[in-house]
């Protein structure tokens, strides 16, 4: 029960800090559940996000429900989902009327400017997390890459390599997304099929 309350407040925190949509949750969630508490491994988290993407509903909520379940079962998933929603409802009900009036005030303007820049940086960081799960076979070894600053050859860990299937699917998705107006669902289904077929070779 105690754990459920902790989970609820954790997700309240994520909800309040989540400027710029569900993808912002990725760095927040990995920092908390993969790096610090270690209730999920990175590959489990990646699979979880894949499931969240292909099942209906907002990615943030899907992820919250799942992480809650992995942590504390049924009540955990309720606590996590509520944690994500309650702050939104509180902020929404109080701000829906006022925000257009406050939008030009110094405090709101500064806050939006700052958080937006941080959000862009954190989404780029989320991209690198995802690179480690798709384009590369392992999490990107930043510590080893730090050697580049000292003009030394970085010592890459065993098993860290490029994944040809990942590069191919990622690249095709980017091109299709920029050049065509295919719906996300079609892209995801195509990628799933391509992944299954390519797994026979690589």
């Amino acid at each position, binding site marked *: 029960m105690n754990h459920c309350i902790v989970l609820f407040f954790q997700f309240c925190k994520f909800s309040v*800090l*989540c400027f710029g*949509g569900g*993808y912002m949750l990725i760095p927040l969630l990995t920092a908390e559940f993969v790096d610090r508490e270690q209730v999920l491994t990175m590959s*489990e988290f*990646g699979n979880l*996000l*894949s499931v969240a*993407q292909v*099942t*209906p*509903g*907002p990615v943030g*909520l*899907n992820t919250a*429900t*799942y992480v809650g*379940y*992995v942590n504390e079962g049924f009540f955990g998933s309720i606590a996590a*989902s509520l944690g994500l929603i309650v702050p*939104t*409802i509180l*902020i*929404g*009900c109080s701000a*829906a009327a006022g*925000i*257009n009036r406050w939008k030009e005030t110094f*405090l709101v*303007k*500064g806050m939006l*400017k700052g958080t937006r*820049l*941080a*959000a862009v*940086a*954190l*989404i780029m*960081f989320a991209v*690198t997390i*995802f690179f480690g799960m798709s*384009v590369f076979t392992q999490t990107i070894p930043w510590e080893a890459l730090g050697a580049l600053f000292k003009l030394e050859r970085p010592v890459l860990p065993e098993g860290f390599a490029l994944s040809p*299937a990942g*590069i*191919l*699917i*990622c690249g095709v*998705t*980017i091109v299709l*997304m920029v050049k065509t107006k295919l719906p*996300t*669902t079609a892209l*995801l289904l*195509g990628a*799933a099929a391509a*992944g*299954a077929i*390519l*797994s*026979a070779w690589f």
Partner: protein
Amino acid sequence: MEIQTLSRARRLLLLYCSFFRITALVVGGGLAMLPVIEEIFVNKYKLLTREELLDMTALTQTVPGIIAINSAVYIGMKIGGVPGALAAAAGAVTPPFTVILIIASFFPHLNPKNRYLLGVFAGIRAAVTGMILVTGCRMFRRTVKTKLEYAVVFIFFLLAIMKVSPALLILAAVPFGWCYVWWQTRRLSQAEQASDSEKNEPSAKTNSETTGNGGDGK
């Protein structure tokens, strides 16, 4: 359909069912919901105008929280007050919660052994990587404009890589934003004062352009 005359309870039910349907059908969430919201609330029930929807879209992306729930709360609020917001949020939550709960209870640890299933997951992950990259680049182009902003985003990015907690980064960004906006407005007002004498130059340019156009017209 005469929505305006509906009883309060029916209105709440309508909100619940509409958002239930939206999140049950739309894969991808967030902004992918917008066209469906427009279809249902603007075109079909005429409870919102297109302008209100646009305002709402901007708003849901400025306040914190996931976009899907933000939209539900604001539309619910607009149509049915606080109970409306609750009904809409509940409707938006029910389908994904149920679906994920079923999946989670069958596969508590997403570690499939089957080679093809692993391939499916890997494929989706790769596609999601591309999608986040495209979304991130679009966001980057919209928000980051000056050299200083480029530098700030880069520093935040480096800090994130160096395992500084993302929560801390967002909190630190708020006072930074205040300083930045304060500095910007001060510089702008200084520039305005300073350019009072130099103002003749650009205005003279536009004058000559307009007279030039006028001459062509004649």
